Structures are given as C-alpha cells and as structure tokens.
C-alpha cells in the first residue's frame, strides 16, 4: 500500500474545504470511468468529511476550517487504472494558517513535520478576490485622466496609512510560502504544485465567448506567482486546474435549476486540455 500526503494550501476563503467536501462525495459515488474511488472505509474516522460533504450535497455553504493544526483527513483510495491502493493524507488547514506564515514569519513545529512527508501541494486561489494583485495609484490616475482635466501633482507631504502585512496582496504571500519551502525545506523540492483556481464557473461566465485556460488566467491575473513558478520549474513542477467544486451560486433560482441534475454534474474541472467533472484530477496528477 502506498501512502501519499498532499497539502491543501491557500489563503482564507479560497475554496479548500468545499473542494474536500465535493471530493469526498465524488470518491464515494463512483461511476464507471472514474479514475480514483474510495477503496475502503474500514478503520477511518470520517465524521468531519461526512459532515462537510453532507452540507455540500444539499447546496449549503460549507463551513470554513478554523483549525490551525489541520483537520486530520485520511482516505483509502484505489486508482482504477493501475489498481494501486493509496492512503491519502490530506490535512485541511485554515487559510489563516498560511496567512500567518507571511505575517508572523514563523510556522509551527507540527506544520514543519508535516512538510517532511508531503508529496505535493494543492495551492488554492480565489479568482474573485480583489486582493490577488496590488492596486497602483498610477493606474488609477491614468484611468482618471480619460475623464478629467489633468492637474499637476503637488510635492506637499501627504497623509497615509502605515505599511503592515495586511497591505500585501495575495500573490506576494503565495510566492513567499513557496520561497519558505525552497529555503527552509530544501529536501522537499522538486515538489509538485497543482494550482487550483476555484469558482471556475465564475471565470468562464466573465470571459463570455472567449475560452480562457487556467494557465492563461494565472499568467494574466496573478502574474508574479506565474513568473515565479515558471522561473523555478525545476523546483516546483506546475499544473494549473480551474475547478468549480460548488458548481453554481447558492441562490434559489440556480439551485432549483440544478436539482434536475445529479449533484456531481455541477462540478467543473478544466485542466487545459479538457473539461470534466473529475474533481480528483489534481490528486491523481500529484500521486502519479
């Protein structure tokens, strides 16, 4: 039996727990062409998984993880293509845990030990978060000039808020997390990084007729993280997925429409080559 440890990383509210909830439901409701499925429930503690998965199945917002030590999740799965049995160790840390690494410049001994056995990262980003990149005053000034008469900028002293880590945008924090790993845990690299862009249905809707691919989204919308990963491809082996685990917005109209389908049919997974409902794809890619 093979044991694989995968770390779900990401800042707060990026879709990590919803992903796990949908994954658990998916692995337990197998269909014929499913690559990964639950092998055995024997000996497992699944209260947390069952609870979040139940919420997901009834279109209820999955509660965010509060634990800084990670909800311990172990899933015994089988790869139907290779018949390999794998025990997946997927602790669900709160987004605040990762945020605090940048803010406080330390991580816990438990997290450090967990990294020693980690085989890959799933790095979650929320495409709707306005703080993914910085907002420059010069850009706003340029935009304003389209509508206003220009005024000379004075050199007088100005009022402003002092800098704190809160002001730093998400892409810098994610780059820092990867740099921490490269510097403090050099034995971990090369490391597989599956970047999961959550709420992919929203990205698809906003791009209208033009099909946008996950890697292109990353390049355009989180350019510093993209550049860092491309430049460090020998240390971080990258695959980008667009995933909508929730599948739809939780309003009455959309839920009523969705009820005519199987709950799993709402899932969207775009890996750059095809769109599917196989939410286990990032896991399969890391364990391959």
């Amino acid at each position: 039996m093979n044991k694989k440890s995968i770390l779900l990383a990401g800042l707060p509210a990026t879709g990590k727990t919803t992903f796990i909830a949908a994954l658990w439901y998916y692995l337990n409701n197998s269909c014929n062409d499913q690559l990964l499925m639950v092998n055995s429930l024997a000996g497992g503690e699944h209260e947390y998984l069952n609870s979040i998965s139940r919420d997901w199945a009834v279109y209820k917002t999955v509660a965010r993880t509060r634990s800084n030590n990670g909800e311990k999740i172990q899933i015994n799965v089988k790869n139907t293509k290779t018949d390999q049995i794998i025990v997946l160790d997927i602790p669900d840390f709160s987004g605040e845990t990762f945020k605090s690494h940048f803010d406080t410049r330390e991580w816990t001994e438990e997290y450090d030990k967990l990294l020693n056995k980690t085989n890959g990262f799933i790095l979650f980003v929320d495409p709707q978060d306005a703080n993914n990149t910085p907002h420059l005053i010069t850009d706003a000034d340029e935009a304003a000039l389209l509508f206003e008469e220009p005024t000379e900028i004075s050199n007088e002293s100005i009022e402003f808020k002092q800098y704190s880590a809160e002001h730093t945008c998400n892409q810098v924090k994610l780059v820092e997390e990867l740099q921490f790993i490269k510097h403090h845990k050099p034995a971990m690299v090369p490391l597989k990084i599956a970047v999961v862009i959550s709420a992919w249905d929203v990205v698809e809707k906003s791009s209208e007729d033009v099909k946008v691919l996950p890697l292109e989204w990353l390049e355009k919308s989180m350019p510093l993280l993209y550049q860092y990963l491309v430049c460090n491809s020998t240390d971080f082996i990258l695959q980008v997925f667009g995933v909508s685990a929730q599948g739809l917005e939780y309003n009455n109209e959309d839920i009523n429409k969705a009820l005519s389908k199987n709950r799993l049919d709402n899932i969207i997974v775009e890996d750059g080559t095809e769109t599917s409902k196989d939410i286990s794809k990032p896991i399969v890619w890391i364990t391959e």
Partner: protein
Amino acid sequence: MAKINNCDQALCKVKMDGKCLESLELSECPHFYFDEETDIDEAENTPNTTVLKSKSIPLFNGAELNMVNTTLVTYQYPCENIIILGDSDSGKTTFLATIFDILQKGPLEGIYFAGSYTQVGFESRCHLSRISSEAAHADTEKTNSKELNFLHLALKVKPALQRPAVHFLISDISGERLQNARDSSSAMKELTPLKFADRIVVMLDGNKIANKRTREASLFDSYTLLKRMSDEKIIRADCDLKIVLSKWDLLDKDTSFNFEKDIEAYFLQKFSDVFTSFSFARIAARPKTPHSTIKVAFGIGELLNEWLEDKPDQSDILNEVPEKRINERWFLNFHS
C-alpha cells in the same frame, strides 16, 4: 534553561557540531538562533529571525538585508552587487519600488521575476504607490536607516528561462548618509564595503537638473561624491559606472536642455580617464507630468536588460570549488 543551537539555513549543521556554516562566531552569524527552550531575552537580539515562541520555527524575515545578512543570499548564489548613489529625493528608492510594482503586473520587457528574499522590504517601499495606503498620490517614503541596506531580486530573461536566475543585491542607502560621505572623509570610510560593488549607479535628480538654478549645483554634488569615492578608493576603477538621470518626464520636452552636452560631456570630461566602463541612461520611474508620453517605468526595463545581458551561466560558477566560490561572496571578502 537548556539552550539548543539552531540555524535558519537548511544546510547548516550547527545543531549537531556547533559549527557555523559560514565559519563565523555563532554570536555574529545572522542565521543562528537558539531553539525553542531559548531564553527569549537573548533571542531578541538575533537579527533576521523572528523572536521564538514555544514550538514555532522562524522563517527568513523578508525585510531588507544589512551587510551581515546579505549572506542569506550570497551563501547560495553568486550575486551582482549594485550600489545606487544619489542625493535625498533623487529617486533611488522609487527606482527599486517601481521594479517590484511593475513585475507584479507582468514581466518587464521580457524580464521575469524569479524570486526575492526581501519581498517585505520591497512591499514596504512600494506601499505609498498603492491605493491601500490611502495616499493622495503615488509617493515613496524616505529612506532613513543608517544601515547600508540591500534588496534582493532574482531575475530571468525570456526566452532563456531555463538558465539559472541572475541574483542582484541592490543598495538602498539614505541620501543623507551619502551627502555626509561627500563632505567628510571619516563618513566616507564607513562606506568601504562598497568597494566590492560590481556596478555603481549615480542617480541624478531630474527635478534639480530641470531647474536651471539648481542644475549646476546638483551636478557639482554628484561630481564631488564620485571624486571623493574614487580618491578614497571606495569604488574601483574597473566597476561599471552608470550615470542615470531620473524623472526624465520633467526634461524630455525642455528644448533648452541637451542630455549629451549638459550631462554626458560633463561627466566624460571629468571621469573618462578614471573609470574603465562608463555609460548613461534616462529613466522615469513614476512620471508626474499629466499626459506625458513618458510612461511608468520608462527606461528601467532597458537598464535591467543591460545588467542581465551576457551573464555567464551561473550553474558553472556554483559547480566550482568552494574556495573559488568564496570570491563571489562579497561580504566575506569584506569581513576578512
């Protein structure tokens, strides 16, 4: 309370053999710390690491690096050491901040961001250019530190993204400190570590050059600073010297100003027989003139591309024998 040696450099074995990877006294090494049973009062004095709490592992702090802490980078990579000279408000820090601001929006003229040990240092310098600072217009906070500080930036150029990154350590020294050095030999001697610079950038304040009343005095100040540095052997004759005129947006429409005649000829006449490599550039990091045809980061991509050109494949350098690699570690050169 028992004290356990530890180090934030992954390859250091101080925990096992008590010896510093850098061959420094433990109290001098910026990466050394006592592990979790440490007396907190003593650990507070350890630079570049976070004060320890129970069961926490300190991570590199991301702030600007002082001379000693540059080993965080120089131990691992050969570095290009770039010193930026210039008066207060000449645009030294804005130049650095703009590089990071622009890279956050995408590659800069084919230049890709490959990493930085000083992202927090960059972020604090970029802060006043961001809407979140609530500043009324983009600005840069003055550098007040008395230290000789450096920011680290690793860059690559497309299409050679498979080659190792070029690592830059770029100074951010307060204008006041440089002004003191221009006027005093003892203050200048404190800048001795700068003699290991690979490149020297002299930033001329475009605002002062644009004003005919302050132009000559500004040039004279830059001349005397360079002259004293050269005479006191603070900068080497074989370093790459670049005279950079900042805030070019204030001058590009000024028909009474001639860059070649007013700037280039001035410095060439005074220093062409002193420095072997001598060149000029014009930049406008953050143009203030509305509707200017000069855009944000004007000239900066060209300057960085020049620094990135013709770099040796650094993987070869890393494979060289350790004794030879030490020559790449300018802090140790200084330290010895």
